[in-house]
């Protein structure tokens, strides 16, 4: 699957649950591995840290105990980056999990908020807006009760501002989940 807000594009590919090499095997649940590949150059530290964030979010949602001693590999390739990359990766990951038919306890979506120096909230910022912003916050919101699965921030903001961004992200999540629903419906009605 390949969601693209604006011009940011991420392609997700999923393999699993499949056989896993001895050392990585977990006896009671599936071992989830996330690989994020940038467009230019070799994966660096920032890709690894994003991989960990994605992995923890996915592990919270995937019912791994249904497939013990297997491995689920999720590969994300960045096709183009024009801002809000982490949110795009989250959306791609969720749609990949959905399309592959893995058992999930809920869906999730990623939303990025930027706080510009005046304090106004900008959802889904472009690269330029992210650079000029005072703080950039990314949330992973789940579909069951709009709770927060993952939150990461860059820059400084006050507690109230963070709560406001969170509330705005929860609103945006509604639109994104509707988009998931429509695209899945479309996919299965045509094929």
């Amino acid at each position: 699957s390949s969601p693209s807000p604006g011009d940011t594009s991420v392609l997700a590919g999923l393999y699993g649950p499949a056989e896993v090499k001895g050392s990585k095997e977990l006896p009671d649940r599936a071992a989830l591995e996330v690989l994020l590949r940038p467009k230019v150059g070799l994966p660096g530290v920032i890709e690894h840290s994003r991989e960990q964030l994605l992995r923890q979010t996915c592990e919270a949602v995937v019912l791994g105990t249904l497939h013990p001693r297997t491995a689920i590999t999720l590969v994300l390739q960045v096709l183009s980056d024009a801002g809000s990359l982490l949110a795009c990766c989250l959306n791609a990951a969720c749609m990949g999990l959905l399309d592959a038919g893995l058992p999930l306890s809920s869906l999730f979506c990623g939303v990025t908020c930027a706080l510009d120096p005046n304090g106004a909230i900008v959802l889904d910022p472009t690269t330029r807006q992210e650079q000029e912003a005072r703080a950039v916050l990314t949330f992973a919101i789940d579909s069951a009760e709009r709770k927060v699965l993952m939150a990461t921030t860059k820059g400084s903001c006050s507690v109230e501002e963070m709560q406001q961004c969170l509330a705005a992200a929860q609103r945006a999540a509604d639109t994104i989940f509707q988009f998931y629903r429509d695209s899945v419906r479309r996919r299965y009605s045509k094929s």
Partner: protein
Amino acid sequence: MKATPLSNCERRFLLRAIEERKRLDGRQCYDYRNVRISFGADYGCCIVELGKTRVLAQVSCELVPPKPNRPTEGILFFNLELSPMAAPGFEPGRQSELLVKLNRLIERCLRNSKCVDTESLCIIAGEKVWQIRLDLHLLNHDGNIIDAASIAGIVALCHFRRPDVSVQGEEVTVYTPEERDPVPLSIHHMPVCVSFAFFQQGTYLLVDPSECEERVMDGLLVIAMNKHREICTIQSSGGIMLVKDQVLRCSKITAVKVAEITELIQKALENDQKVRKEGGKFGFAESIPNQKITAFKIERAAIDTNNVEEQAEEIIAKADPPSEVFAKPILHTPGTAQIGEGIENSWGDLEESEREEAAEEEGEIEAAAFECQKMETEDTSTMSETKKDEPIVLSDSEEEEVIILEPQEVPKKTRTQTNSKQENTSKKAFNKRRKKKRAAY
């Protein structure tokens, strides 16, 4: 993940079909699959689909000092990656033979053929030249990676625009895309690879093998040619013995195929150029939905954020206030801080003497506030807001007594709380070891 092996009956089926001049997807022996080229939003980014095999190419450039033995030439760097999403058998970080072979072929095809003019990449001889880097990512493997990769590579190089540069004496000015239009690379010719798969010791020949056909083939012949019928690279692998007129026949077929593919490339580049000039939208976000029925796209959606502030205030009012349990950070010496005290040592009487010493030293240490503290308490209160129900207790560090030695150098004061905790851990481990040495005397 392990790749599924090909079963014997599949192998036999494929070979029998090839003997009868039939292919699984209904193609003729010399037919290529559909080639589709789409461009991304930035210059130098493209995706090439050869049937189901997909390759993503991205070109980027950088100013570097040149190689010492070639001071007037720019540097070309090629990198092909087999993404784990291409096939279940591809694992990250494993240098397989296939990867090395493909990389070498791409290098020979694009670098040794001198299709890109490296002299034009030089800015100041011996000091600054452009390094052009081509990254190829294989997104899906359905056979014939080398052809798709070579097409993607040459298309990306033709599509790429580097920033304009002007030199005045010793001064070099690099213009941003807003100041001056970026300049295309100077490409002499476009080499394209064509692969031939041989079966039954060279009796049967197929052009553009798919993945199953590749698994049962005896040998592979790759010819890279440009539209002027010049062979840039030729490589035969697999140990098959080829007769001279077989090779000549293949090169004739290559000439025909390359002419078709080059025409397709030119058309694609022109289309993209036209769209960009007219100011239309370009990039994958535009091209992919139009090509696929299963793709879906929504326009920018406005979110109603009017009541956001009130909702946020409600949440803050309802949430428990951040608990007072977490202690203020204590500054021992410049650059070393501690949050929370250690709990009782559960190792028994082994450390009794050390405990006494520790008690003495801790008495001497003063607590002082510094600018870090404010940032840290703000951080901790933000963290407690996210998990509204459980207050975070930061004082249960599992470390033992803290003995602080004078640090050698003064690290920067702007550390966040997690950093200072980690630093504490490492410093404590270090100190513990020092302590044990002291006890040994």
